């Protein structure tokens, strides 16, 4: 953009550009109250005048923000005081209007596809498109704003806490709204809107401010995040479809978090991770009171979970002990081979090609629901007048498991062990020379990751009701790895986001299920080329992938010094 339009032109035409953009934003806002389509089937019925549909009213958000950003500067620099520089008014408005255009186009495309033809778009849709186009043309003509400094503004503690709680409430509300979009068009449109809003907030510096607030009030953040997560089933009105997806997402995320320790922290590429999940699931299934269970020993679930975890971690030791010594690339292939061995073995232990343990490819079905200290997970309950179904029970259980994993992960990350892991990842020889027991630490990570997968697998067995060998194929390992890579290796938040995206999108966008794997392969290639550190970057990781980028190194150093002083109270900063 900078190269296209010179700064002088921008300064000269700033007033007309602003007016044009304001008109555009106003047009999009007005269009919300007009009908967008002729047919009722498109989106969530956008055919009314003056009464926007729920999805349609969300279109007020982005242009509203843009309008605010464009109009407030009319007050003048003096009256704005320190906010004149704290917020990147023009640049944010630009991002906002481009995002508006993108979402409007997606919405109109969804209408056109669902109703078969552009002819079905009514006046409101065209007004929205025209307005968004005007704003998207006008705002790039505005002069660039300096980098926002909102995140440096000193704010009282209560304001930070209010900010965090507000964010969490928004997350809860938006997530439940998004999940309730049943057709792909609405879901995509809403998703694009959310991405647009997040981009604008990031540009504004609100995200930066929030991340500092979160870092300063870690307990509040974690607590409110879990309150929100626990409250999620109450927003679903007993809908089992969404809760089933949500509980699957959590099981997937728990396994991905375990893999994250191995891949993200220690840098060991494990391509057979799903086998550990499978080992846990099969152990739990065999020890359950299913009619197809082949062993006459049915301990209570708490014992089963521990056994599952131990079985998985024993397998981890078995595979890790020989291969972690030779290190490196071999591990990837050996774990891959182990994944195949596991699948084939589970297939063969059918009484025909081997002793009967797993019923071969039929697997073990009819696994009863968990019964935990008299609490039956299969039973629906009514809490606060909302029906809480079977999947919600598993959802809550998995939430507890994930909370446990996160606590362990965070503590390890900042412990002697965690630092040893990162040292191994960055330079194994140097770490060894510094006295890090690399083999023991790698083995610990490997077995620990396997244990977590085993626990997740034990819950998965009861959640899925049946366990078969073909649920635990290489592709699932690749998906877990993709969740870690996509979200951001070594981060908790990133992996949670990655797991959610990878599990949720295929459920909601059925139409592309045929191309799912193709896109997935492409995504892995493209991610590695352009953003190998993932959506949410771990700072050390980011430096690792962009070693020669001096500017980035300085930025990260500065950020560590200014934002994370709480981590290093003994010093007034942090030296990289």
């Amino acid at each position, binding site marked *: 953009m900078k190269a296209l339009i010179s700064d002088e032109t921008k300064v000269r035409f700033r007033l007309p550009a602003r007016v044009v953009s304001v008109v555009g934003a106003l047009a999009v806002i007005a269009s919300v109250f007009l009908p967008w389509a002729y047919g009722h089937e498109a989106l969530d019925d956008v055919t009314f005048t003056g009464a926007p549909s729920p999805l349609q009213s969300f279109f007020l958000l982005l242009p509203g923000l843009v309008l605010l950003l464009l109009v407030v500067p009319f007050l003048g620099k003096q009256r704005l005081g320190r906010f004149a520089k704290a917020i990147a008014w023009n640049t944010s408005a630009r991002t906002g209007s481009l995002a508006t255009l993108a979402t409007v186009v997606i919405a109109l495309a969804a209408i056109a596809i669902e109703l078969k033809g552009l002819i079905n778009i009514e006046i409101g849709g065209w007004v929205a498109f025209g307005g968004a186009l005007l704003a998207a043309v006008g705002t790039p003509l505005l002069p660039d704003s300096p980098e926002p400094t909102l995140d440096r503004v000193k704010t009282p503690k209560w304001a930070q806490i209010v900010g965090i709680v507000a964010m969490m409430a928004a997350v809860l509300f938006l997530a439940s709204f998004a999940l309730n979009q049943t057709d792909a068009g609405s879901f995509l449109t809403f998703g694009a809107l959310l991405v647009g809003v997040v981009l604008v907030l990031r540009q504004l510096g609100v995200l930066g401010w929030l991340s500092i607030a979160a870092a300063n009030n870690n307990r509040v953040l974690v607590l409110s995040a879990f309150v929100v997560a626990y409250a999620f089933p109450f927003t679903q009105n007993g809908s089992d479809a969404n809760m089933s997806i949500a509980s699957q997402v959590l099981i997937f995320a728990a396994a991905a978090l375990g893999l994250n320790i191995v*891949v993200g922290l220690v*840098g060991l*590429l494990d*391509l057979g991770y799903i086998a550990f999940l499978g080992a846990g699931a099969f152990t739990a299934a065999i020890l359950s009171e299913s009619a197809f269970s082949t062993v006459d020993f049915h301990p209570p679930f708490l014992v089963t979970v521990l056994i599952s975890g131990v079985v998985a971690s024993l397998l981890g030791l078995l*595979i890790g002990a*020989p*291969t972690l*010594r*030779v*290190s*490196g*690339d*071999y591990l*990837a*292939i*050996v774990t*891959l*081979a*182990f994944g*195949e*061995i596991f699948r*084939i*073995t589970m*297939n*063969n232990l059918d009484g*025909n*090609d*081997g*002793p009967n343990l797993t019923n071969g490819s039929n697997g073990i079905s009819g696994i009863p629901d968990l019964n935990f200290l008299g609490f039956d997970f299969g039973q629906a309950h009514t809490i606060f007048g909302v029906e809480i179904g079977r999947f919600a029970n598993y959802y809550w259980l998995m939430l507890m498991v994930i909370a446990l994993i996160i606590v362990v992960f965070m503590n390890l990350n900042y412990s002697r062990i965690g630092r040893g892991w990162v040292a191994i990842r960055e330079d*194994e*020889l140097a770490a060894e020379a510094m006295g890090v027991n690399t083999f023991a630490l790698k083995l610990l990570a490997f077995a620990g990751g396997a244990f977590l997968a085993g626990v997740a697998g034990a819950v998965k067995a009861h959640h899925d009701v049946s366990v078969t060998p073909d649920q635990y194929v*290489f*592709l699932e390992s*690749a998906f877990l*790895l993709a969740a870690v*890579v996509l979200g951001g*290796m070594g981060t908790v938040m990133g992996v949670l986001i990655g797991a959610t995206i990878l599990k949720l999108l295929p459920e909601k966008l059925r139409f592309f299920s*045929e*191309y799912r*794997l*193709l896109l*997935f*392969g*492409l*995504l*892995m*290639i493209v*991610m*590695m*080329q352009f953003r*190998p550190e993932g959506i949410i970057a771990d700072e050390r990781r980011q430096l*690792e*992938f962009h070693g020669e980028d001096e500017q980035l190194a300085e930025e990260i150093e500065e950020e560590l010094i200014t934002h994370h002083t709480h981590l290093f109270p003994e010093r007034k900063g942090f030296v990289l």
Partner: protein
Amino acid sequence: MELFFQQLVNGTSLGALYALIAVGYTVVYGIVQLINFAHGEIFMVGAFGAFATWMVLGQPTNWGPAASLMILLPLMLLGGIAVSVTVALLTERFAYRPLRNAPRLAPLITAIGVSVFLQEFVRLFYGRIPGFPDAKSAVPFPSIAGISGEIIQIGGVTIQMPAVFTIGALAISTVFLWFFVNRSKTGRAMVATSQDPDTARLMGIDVDKVIVAAFAVGAGLAALAGVAHGLSYGNIDFRMGFLAGLKAFTAAVLGGIGNINGAVVGGLVLGIVEAMATTFIPGQFGSSAWKDVWAFALLILVLVFRPQGLLGAKVVDRA
């Protein structure tokens, strides 16, 4: 004893197939230290390329043995090799080359992506070519008169002609590889680069070209293996690269990764072990359902007791 020789023949032909693919792993690894995870898919693509050549030739089914062996088979081989080499060079250029100085995890993950992408690409789009069969399930491979279904009987041992073809292809390729590596300029540049890339560059060797040559040689042999697979099993499948690639990698490690002779020996040993295991392991665990397990168990055993492989001299300590 007859059974032993029969299994020896079967194992050798299976092993020759692994060896042809394993050379690709080992050559690329020797030069760029990259496990080209997608190499199994290059093998699969080669088979589909040969099949496409047969389709383009008008699906000839009634050619006599002479014409089939002298014209049809060479054309199909060339077609398969052309497709394999093209795909391999494209992945090298656009997926691996930009990551040459990236942390080691990045190219490995890219390789997984390439592998999944190639499989899905064939599955989804092969059948879209007008007149081509749908590749979503196994595609029957054309039979070549003079090879398909023919057998040679020596005593009580039956030798399938496709097995002879596979072993012959390996033998010729090995001789070709020996001359290529030891006599040609590019081959010697490859050896120099694998020993010390920086010094090789100082000596005026174009390392990029050498890497391209390594990918091309590996892909060419993988395409031969693809055709051999089609002839031996009678059909080709978009999934066939996964297991074959895994086995071939095992073979490369078994022989000593980075060592071309090692890949050939490793492939043959692996094939024979697999064939023998299904015959001579008593009881239920000797059934053919377990043969892959024994192959991978062998890989793990090799890594424990002889990580440098059967013929590999240098200890692998690269992270």
